[in-house]
Each structure stands twice: as C-alpha cells, then as structure tokens.
C-alpha cells in the first residue's frame, strides 16, 4: 500500500530504519494506522500511558514484548504504565503467592527495560512532575484516564490500545486523527443536570447511569456550577463501565467548554437527556441502600491523589479496621512515597489497613483470584469497581462512608439518611 500521509525528513528516516528496527517497526504500524483513519501527518506526543502491564494479558503478547526488547525498543517520551495485577512492593504483606509476583515481575521488567517510569496506575495525571498543558498531544490507553485527560486537562488523545500506545511511545509520535483534531472534540449530546450533585458518589452514579445511552457520543453537561478534580475523575471512570466515550464537557468548568455554544462548537446537540433527582434517588436505591455486613473496603478507584489519602488518614487516625475486614487504599507510587513521608501511610497501617500501589481491588482478583478468598460484600468509592466486581455485591460511598464501613464492618445506608445528603 502506498503511504498517504505526509512525513517529515526525520520521520522518513525513522521509517527507513536509520534509528533501528524497533523505531522502524513502530513507524510502519503507526503510519498504516494513520492512513486507515485518514491522518494527514504525525503529531509529536509529550507522554504515553501504556497498558501491556496486566498478567491477564495473553502469553502471545508477552512474546511480542520480548521481541521488542530484543530489537532494542526504548520509549522516546516519559511513559507510565497501567496497573498490574499485584502490588509489586507489598505483595508479601498482602499474602500474594511468589509465583504471581514472579510472573508479573517478568512482564514489568520488559517495560522497565524499555525505559518506563516506575508508575503503574490508572491516574497518570496524579504522577507529580508530569504536568501537561491544554492542547498537548499524548497517547493514553486507560479508558478513564483518556476521558479525564481530554475533558479536564484539555490534552488530546485517542482511545489507544496497549500496542498502539506503546508504538507511539517508541516513535514519540501518533497519527493525527480523531480526538487530536479540535473539530472532533465538540459535544454531541446535551445532558441537563436538574439535581444538585453534592458528592463524588453522585458524580460517579450519574456517569454510570448515562454511560449506556452515550455509546461513543461526547456528552455536554449543563447545570453543574462547580466540580472538583475528584468528582470529575470519578465521573470519567464511571463512564467506562458501559460506554466508549473519549471525553465530556461541563459548561463553565472544563477547559473547552466556557459556554454551551463553545462546547458544541456552534452546532446543535444531536440529543438531549435530563438527569433528575428521581434518577439519583433510584441509583441510591440500587447501589447504596442496604444494611449488611461487609468483608472488604477498597478506596482508590481511580487511584487517589495525596489530598484524598490525607483524608483517609485523618478519618481513620486512632481507630481500628473491624475484624474480618480487609481495608485497601490504592494510589500511585509517587503519592504512596509522599504519604509515607507525611505520616499518612503509618496511620493507615496502624489502623490495620494497607496503602497499596501498582494495582487495585478488582485487578488483583481479575485472572488470579484473591489470596484471602472471595468476599460477599465490598464497599468501593467508585462505580467502575462496583460494576466490575463479581461475584457478590458492591456498594458505593464517599471516602468518609468507606472508612466508616471499614471500622464498623457494616454497610448501613437507609433511605431517610440518604435524602438528606
């Protein structure tokens, strides 16, 4: 096939093999990829986030990574990895069998050899030092991070798969199509928010509720006067349950939506959906209202920032996790280090909890099972984990409610308390 897109002299050299076989291989795939989607040129990326990191990926892919390392593949831009199946630092304490550690280690070592930053997280945006600016091009492949990055940070990425993101990291480039182009970032569906969203939980439930109808269409929220980073990153994660969206706009809040008109780039919405108080109360009923004993609490979907870890520490300081309850708090390695220095980690440990990184509550179970057996009831701080948690039942609560559940060993939300929130 004749190459259709324009390449710079430098890019032609890369494609001709002057920078070695790995760069050539990456450029071959990326230029073909770009041609299929009508890209006119490549754009340089400033960061990549790659998900070839879970042990549940196939052996065929491990061999592929082996071959890349042998070809001398190195990433050209700062590159972080998605979560793995275990905490590579705390695995012994968590009772993870050595065999699981070794398998994951082998996989991760391939990434380290290619020059990855030692961060395996779903929130690359909470890795300090990786400040990205509005309009920056990146290649990301964690679905919730893609939505958060495009929507809240104004950076530009398509929904990459692990291989396309890795190829972009090795080439330092990605073909310019889809969400790299401003015209494709306009809103498509108007969501009129007709209830007051008060908590992270409210945002998460709303995202889950709207996901199925959204498909691949970019929603524009009208009626949310203010939203915190935590509310928006949980909204992004909730959308990944049942939709394939790449971004959202919140009018007056997110960077590409100063006005309703700007969010739609002058176009009319294709569809209008209301999100009402009745919807929210119905979601409370399904995912909150219950009075049951619980066995596990996981706070960290998406991985927490330092402010949130501090909140967990403040709430659990001097208290103890109930007998029979596993209490996990998930974050990035960088935040974990900072939390150690600030004393938050010690407070969580003394209470009987674990501050973990590199993995999350459901990723640990996925494909390898839990070292502590299957729980019946989990409490999570985000709908993404509630959705993917099987078997058993998952409940959603804010950090305060999650900590309380860990201390008491009970999840207790009754209707009256709810309506006062």
């Amino acid at each position, binding site marked *: 096939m004749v190459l259709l897109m324009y390449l710079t002299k430098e890019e032609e050299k890369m494609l001709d093999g002057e920078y070695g076989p790995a760069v050539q291989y990456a450029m071959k795939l990326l230029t073909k990829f770009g041609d*299929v989607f009508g890209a006119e040129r490549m754009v340089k990326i400033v960061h990549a986030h790659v998900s070839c990191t879970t042990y549940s990926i196939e052996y065929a*892919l491990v061999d592929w990574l082996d071959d890349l390392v042998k070809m001398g593949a190195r990433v050209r831009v700062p590159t972080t990895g998605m979560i793995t199946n275990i905490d590579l630092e705390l695995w012994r304490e968590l009772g993870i069998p050595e065999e699981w550690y070794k398998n994951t280690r082998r996989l991760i070592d391939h990434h380290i050899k290619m020059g990855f930053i030692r961060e395996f997280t779903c929130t690359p945006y909470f890795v300090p030092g990786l400040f990205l600016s509005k309009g920056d091009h990146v290649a990301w492949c964690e679905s919730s991070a893609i939505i958060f990055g495009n929507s809240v940070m104004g950076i530009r990425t398509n929904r990459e*798969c692990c291989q396309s993101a890795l190829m972009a990291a090795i080439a330092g480039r990605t073909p310019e199509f889809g969400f790299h182009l401003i015209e494709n970032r306009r809103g498509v569906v108007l969501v009129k928010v007709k209830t007051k969203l008060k908590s992270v939980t409210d945002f998460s439930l709303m995202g889950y509720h709207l996901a199925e109808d959204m498909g691949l269409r970019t929603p524009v929220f009208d009626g949310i006067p203010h939203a915190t980073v935590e509310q928006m990153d949980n909204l992004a994660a909730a959308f990944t349950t049942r939709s394939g969206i790449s971004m959202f706009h919140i009018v007056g809040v997110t960077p590409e939506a100063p006005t309703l008109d700007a969010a739609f780039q002058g176009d009319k919405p294709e569809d209008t959906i209301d999100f009402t108080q009745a919807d929210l109360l119905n979601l409370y009923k399904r995912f909150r209202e219950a009075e049951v004993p619980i066995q596990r609490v996981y706070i960290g979907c998406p991985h927490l920032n330092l402010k949130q870890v501090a909140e967990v520490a403040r709430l659990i300081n001097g208290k103890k996790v109930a007998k029979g309850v596993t209490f996990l708090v998930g974050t990035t390695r960088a935040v974990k280090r900072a939390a150690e220095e600030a004393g938050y980690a010690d407070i969580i440990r003394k209470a009987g909890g674990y501050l973990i990184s590199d993995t999350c509550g459901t990723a640990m179970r996925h494909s390898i099972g839990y070292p502590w057996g299957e729980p019946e009831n989990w409490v999570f701080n985000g709908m993404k984990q509630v959705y993917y948690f099987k078997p058993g039942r998952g409940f959603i609560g804010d950090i305060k409610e999650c900590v309380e559940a860990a201390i008491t060993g009970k999840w207790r939300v009754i209707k009256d308390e709810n309506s006062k929130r």
Partner: protein
Amino acid sequence: MRILKGKPVVDGVAEGFALVSKTRLNLLSDVDKEKGIIIKEKHELYGESLKDKILVFPSGVGTVGLSTIIYTLKKNGVGPKALINQELETTTVFGALLAEIPMVAELEEDPIKVIKTGDLVRVDGTNGTVTIL
C-alpha cells in the same frame, strides 16, 4: 461472482468461508481465545469456530483489549483468515495490523446483508475489494 469495493485496511489476500455476525462483537468476552470459538450465548454464531474463516461483523465494540485478542487468536492458530467490518474501530484495526490479517472496511454495500455465512469469499486488503465467489 460479485465484487464489492471498500476501503483497504490491512494488506494481503485471503480466501475462505464467511462467518457473518449481525451484531457488533466484543471479541474479549464473546470469543474463547484458546479455541477460537464464539461463546456469546444466544448469539446466532454461538459455538462456531473462527479458524480460517472470513469474519464479517459491523465493528468491534467495548474494551481497548480487542487488539490483543485478535493478535492472540492468530498466534494460537485459531484466528480468522481475514476481517470485514462495516465501521472502522481503532483497536480492531490495530489488532489486524499487528497480526497481519487482511482487512477491508466501509464497503459500498452493507456486507452484513450481502454476505451470508458459508459463502466462499476472497478478501483483497491491498486493493480494498471483497469478492463473493
């Protein structure tokens, strides 16, 4: 014999019997990657093998892990010989590029309606044509 024109996606020519799914496929959850068999319950192709078939479906859907599954099916020797999609989806395309499985998309007529399961089909991913033999 009938020739349909479409968009060339992945180079190469392959000939085989068609397997046509009317619905979008999430290959991660709908296919047994070791055996290459469709395991989605109540699906019209439930229990059918993908091995050496020309797989025709509207588009890939769901997880960004589709590329990995397409590559794995090929490496396990149970994958399709070629892919025909009506809509382009990035992770399906990248998986086909990686696995070097000839692929054509965006045909002038909807392949789901024109091609029947069991038809002998030739896919030319280099020139973007599908021939129903």
